[in-house]
């Protein structure tokens, strides 16, 4: 039987639709500390150190760091077509919203079930921010 995936309601922050492989981080993310030409996380002590967030659906608790660097970081990734396809977060703040608007990355929060229990790295995830629906299909691994 074809796997239609689990559909979950969410709250739209920045509109649009994005689909890709999930990359889950339990730690806050600063986009300035990724390599703008590859999308690889450079922060040595970070859970995602060495992982590539380009074109993934990024699942993380919140953003961090000063507004100037955070926005510039995501914007630079986007201008190299290396931004995440969509972002699912737990706690939004103004700086992350502005980053997503400028980089044109769909951003949602308030997933109806705990995002860290329902989505795992490698799952195929579609975020339809306009309809407020996240679809999760389990990954092969």
């Amino acid at each position, binding site marked *: 039987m074809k796997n239609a995936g689990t559909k979950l309601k969410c709250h*739209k*922050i*920045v509109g649009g639709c994005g689909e890709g492989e999930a990359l889950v981080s339990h730690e806050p993310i600063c986009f300035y500390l990724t390599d703008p030409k590859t999308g690889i996380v450079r922060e040595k002590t970070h859970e995602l150190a060495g992982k590539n967030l380009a074109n993934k659906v990024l699942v993380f608790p919140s953003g961090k760091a*000063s*507004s*100037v*660097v*955070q*926005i*510039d*970081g*995501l*914007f*630079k990734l986007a*201008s190299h077509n290396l931004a995440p396809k969509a972002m699912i977060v737990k706690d*939004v*703040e*103004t*700086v992350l*919203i*502005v*980053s997503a*608007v*400028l980089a044109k990355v769909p951003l949602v*929060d308030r997933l109806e079930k705990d995002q860290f229990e329902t989505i795992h790295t490698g799952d195929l995830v579609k975020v339809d921010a306009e309809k407020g629906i996240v679809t999760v299909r389990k990954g092969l691994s």
Partner: protein
Amino acid sequence: MFSGELGQGTQRAMELLVAIGDAYDAEKMIPISRAHAASSGQEGDLYFVELLANGGAKCRVPTSTNPVYDIEFFHRLFEVPSDEAEVARRVMEAYKRVGAILSWSCLPYLTENIPLFGETVAFSESSATPYVNSVIGATTNREAAQSALAAGVVGKTPRYGLHIKENRKGTVLIEVEASLRDSFDYTLLGQFVGEQIGYGIPVFAGITRRPSTEELINFCAMSNTSGAVSMFYIPGFTVEARTVEEAFQGDAPKEKLTVTSAELKSTWEELQTASGKIDFVMLGCPHYTLKQVAEAAELLEGKKIHGGVSFWICTSATTKTLAKRMGYVDTVEKAGGHVVVDTCIDEPCWTVYKDRVGMTDSPKCAYYRRFKDVVVAGLEDCVKAAVKGKYE
């Protein structure tokens, strides 16, 4: 306004504010009286300010700007990558086109753009947000450069967060047992408290001496960099609550933290990342006030900075004008130092020091990691090291 009858630039600004309002379930937009955009010579900032400027947007309320850098000044001294310089030039030109106050200062709340108690404003910049909320008693959220600029253009902001009284309630009680002697102690206090609490509104007990303007600025800048402290209370000295109870709006504090001299000492030890030969000293993050420029000049009086050390004090054009008039700039220059305006340590104009070891009195300056290493110590230590050519 959202349908664009006021022009495309203003419409783009409104779209950003609506997205923020939606995210926070804000029920309405409220008028603001002024804004401060934490402009910078970086691509993300350039994109948005040009989007508004090219769409014909003009600031509806006074909107000041953060440091970028004077390209011609730096070109006379050393190489700035030409693509970086072009970004800075375009950013400064676009802010002029949108009619911003070209303060290029991170302390606009002292001179160029001063809110009053109770005003609704949109102030980005790490020291500005908590200073304006706590010391002045205006209300602002922890804005990004772009959301503050958008609010300045539209003249409004969504009503959420710190614009609502319940959200201005203290979240953690900080009992200060350490003696806070000078502005560097407040720097360390800010660094420590930010690291410990992350997001939150600290309420202080045990501070018995009135903090100076500079001490408060340092606390604001550091606690909102090592953490996200948009507001704090020192009952008796900050304006909004007269007592600890009032700061917690009648609730009992859920969390407590004690700060003794031992915590401040270990915070400082962590910031002393190197010793020995230094290549540059960078002061003025945030911008030095007139009083701080005077203090630096007094320490440099009759001294000569070591030939291997570049010595910089960053400040605003307004402050430098006065400092020059009062002779402080001459004293610094006679010793071999520079007083530079309109810029900050986090600008790309300093790439010449990329592989060098520096010294500063600001952990925020070290945090950006633009250099090989930056040692943090008080002003007096920085001046001593500049004269000797090494920190020991």
